[in-house]
């Protein structure tokens, strides 16, 4: 398990222990990864984050088009593995949780613990640290710092 911000380790660790999920990814609505559990390769986590954020954005657009106004969770049930996406509000804007789980747990349990994780993250979230204006050089540096935090080394 790895997190960009240390305070996320507590709630994410509890969620992973209790829900028995295989992969968990926390990201911003833009697809920026803030914490992950279960991934071993950086390329996989970046791809999953981008795809997860894209799925949430496109499904919400469709929900708005149909007058549903959005959705609480999005679940995809597979034969051996299933996936749940939960967008949730935080003081820093919308974040998304992406969870992959197998037959050792159920979607009901995952949803219950995931909703608790979302509530804990929103409640424990410290104010965002003030940052200098983002330049091209700083963007690259921040990206490398985030990857180093998540995987222990930069490219």
């Amino acid at each position, binding site marked *: 398990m790895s997190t960009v911000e240390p305070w996320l380790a507590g709630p994410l660790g509890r969620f992973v222990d209790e829900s028995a999920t295989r992969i968990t990814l926390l990201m911003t609505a833009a697809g920026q990864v803030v914490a992950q559990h279960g991934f071993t390769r950086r390329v996989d986590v970046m791809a999953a984050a981008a795809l997860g954020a894209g799925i949430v954005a496109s499904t919400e657009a469709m929900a708005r088009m149909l007058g549903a106004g959005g959705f609480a969770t999005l679940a995809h049930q597979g034969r051996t593995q299933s996936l749940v996406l939960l967008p949730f509000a935080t003081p820093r804007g919308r974040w998304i949780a992406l969870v992959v789980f197998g037959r050792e*747990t*159920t*979607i*009901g*349990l995952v*949803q*219950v613990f995931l*909703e608790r994780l979302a509530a804990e993250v929103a409640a424990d979230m410290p104010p965002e640290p003030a940052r200098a204006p983002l330049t091209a050089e700083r963007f690259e540096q921040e990206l490398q710092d985030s990857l180093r935090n998540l995987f222990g080394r930069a490219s």
Partner: protein
Amino acid sequence: MIDAAQDALDRLTRVRGVRGALLVSTEDGLVVAEAIMEGVAAKPIAALAASTLTRLARAMPRAGLRAPQFVQLRAERGMMLAAPAGDDLLVVAIADPTVNVGLVRLELLDVVAAVVGR
């Protein structure tokens, strides 16, 4: 089927001390139908009951017994009573610790009959 099950769930909640009754998807742990008092959280109960019953159903045959037909879990502040209704569903009741368990069991098995007889 849902109408008959909902009626049976409503009857189950009329037993004194029963705080809620749920029909739960065994595989998913999701609520299919419910009749619960305000303040009782249906989703966690459904998820945990399905998980518990599924694990028991796996474990009991290894002990030389068959899958459970009725499960009673007693905690300090209440009780969970559950029975499978066919392969896919589960009937769950949440009750006070002082509830008449025999009566709840009878009503709970009536819900099972209403569901299985669909």
